[in-house]
């Protein structure tokens, strides 16, 4: 099943995007964005995966052990931080907007059109 990780990547991405496209609640929307974001973690990690590989820490392991790619792990770490910070900002927008308009529904109180 070498396609399985990729299928899950696409599934997470689509679930997230569908949620954003149809969301009626800004907080739900932020969560959906995070779900979509998690697809990139999975893709990055699966791209660097080596079957039977161990964690890339060379402490007390046999000399010729196979190790998974550490680069994608570092990239994923950055990605997670980015996702978390962006959602903090988005939640702040949602909170202030709720205070102003009394709703979390992005379709209520229509913004500027045209």
């Amino acid at each position, binding site marked *: 099943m070498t396609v399985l990780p990729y299928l899950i990547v696409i599934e997470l991405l689509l679930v997230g995007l569908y949620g954003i496209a149809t969301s009626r609640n800004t907080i739900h929307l932020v969560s959906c964005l995070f779900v*979509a974001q998690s697809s990139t973690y999975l893709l990055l990690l699966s791209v660097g995966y080596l079957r039977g590989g161990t964690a890339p820490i060379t402490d007390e392991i046999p000399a010729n052990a196979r190790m998974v790619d550490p680069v994608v792990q570092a990239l994923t770490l950055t990605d997670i931080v980015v996702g978390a910070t962006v959602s903090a900002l988005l939640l702040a927008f949602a909170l202030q907007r709720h205070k102003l308009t009394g709703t979390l529904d*992005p*379709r209520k109180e229509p*913004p500027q059109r045209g």
Partner: protein
Amino acid sequence: MSLAPFPVITALFMAALLAALEQLSSRRRLLDVLSLATAMAVAIFDWQLLDASLAGTIVYWFGDWKPMGGFPVGIAFVIDPASAGLALLSALLTLAALLFSWHHFHAVRTYYHTLMLLFLASLQGFALTGDLFNMFVFFELMGVAAYALTGYKIEESGPLEGALNFAVMNSVAGLMVLLGIALLYALTGGLNLAWAGAALSGKPAGTAVSAAFILLAVGFLTKGAVLPFHFWLPDAHSVAPTPASVLFSGIMVQLGLYAVARIYWVVFSTTLDPDLLRQMLLGFGVATALVGGVMACLQRHLKRLLAYSTVSHSGMMLAGMALLDRRALQGTLLYIAGHGLVKGALFIGTGVLVYHHRSVDEKELHGRCRHLRVTGVLFCVAGLALSGLPPFGTWTGKGIIKETASDLGYQFLPPLLSLCSALTAGAVLRAAGGIFFGLGHSDPFSSSAPATGEEGSETGHSRGPTPRIMLVPLGLLLVASLGVGMLPQVQQVADQAAGRFIDRAAYQALVLQGTPLPLPRPAPQARPGVTVSFVTTAAALVVAALFLGPGPLRGRGRESVKVLLRGPVRLLRRVHSGYIGDYVTWFICGTGIMMALAQFWF
């Protein structure tokens, strides 16, 4: 000691320092002085780097991680005239924005200055880096600072909506960039652009390669506000505080296009079929330019009008870039500089309006700003410059793009570009004529447009004449744009930048092996014709006159014109609905179309 890292780290360090000045009383002056000094220092660094890069592209490996056996393990800044020039442009625009906000702008504690400096740092890093993932990091830093600046005025719902749409669309774009990075990493094993290009060269373009390019391109084209990924831009640029809008429309959008160009030339240019790519990008560019131009004419909210004009001009730049030609690229780079400076001036002009009247609504301000003579005249000059009036920078840039397009056999492109310029500049001039000179009446199309009545005050008090310090950057930006158009040195730099930009073999050899190849020979000086440009400017005036004067939109023909245009206008307005769900839908459709085209063709 190389100056390469300083544009970024100076701005970052000063941002942290300013944030620590929190509890200082009477800190306002200090914040202004320090942030201006920082922007000035960054501009000087960029100037030096540009100067040095003309003699030869600079490669700077962070942490001294030079390539090991030809494989780049570290992160490199690759500073050629194009990247240094864009960095310099962003520093100059920041300088103008900070000058505008001097003392009068309502700065909340230290956050405004901190965020502006962080934004500056991200623009610098994004332009200078030669590493794909590092580009993503600065893309996100740019995003986070920009979202916060957009939502600056939390007392209104407009900025919050705009910031939310902006943040969600750009995060989705970041997702696509990341997927593209993952694909490219799996294919090439490296994150350095030069390495990825070297690893791909000579291989056939498979589905994975074309998908990687499309994902990266879609991500950065969202930043570049290209149809159908442009919807966030008018929502965000029209509500952001003036200094932020100057940077958004002046350089941030254009950096998105720059990233696509850079990635294409360094990584994909020998793998993907240039003819097909040219047609695809030209199509998207022209469509963007047209839609943006038409939408600009339909606005009454002045900042929104300018935002749509940015969309339109971004489309023109994409069209210029899409010719995939050295001279066209030279024109595009000049156009980015000329347009960015003019657009910055226009936004500062609207900032002056907000300062006096707390409104940017064309109808509400009609004839009320006759006393703002200097601003009015400068605003009109900027409007004319937007249409490509010689000898502004917009004229040389667009002139070169048009002539190259004709030479390459794309005869349809020059008239289209002229039309879009005339539409956007006409809309700006119409608004200026009404606001500053009280010309004409309300026209039937823009009247129905949305307008958020009261602009939140950006400034403390607003009595008396316009502070000089607000007009200084307005004038300086226009002078700078004149300089871009008139100085032959600027053209030579742009020519050298374009030559270096498309020379992927030299780029790879320099980054991976450290061996400089000979510089491209300078092309003969281009002097685009003035006639076409004057005709375009005249056409812009005609558009403005159509809206303002007693023409078909006013007299007996009015009803028939209205009936004829009502349908398309309503449709366009409906599509720009302001709902984030719709934007994501269009985004997905656009991405799907691009992926399909790419995979069938390449």
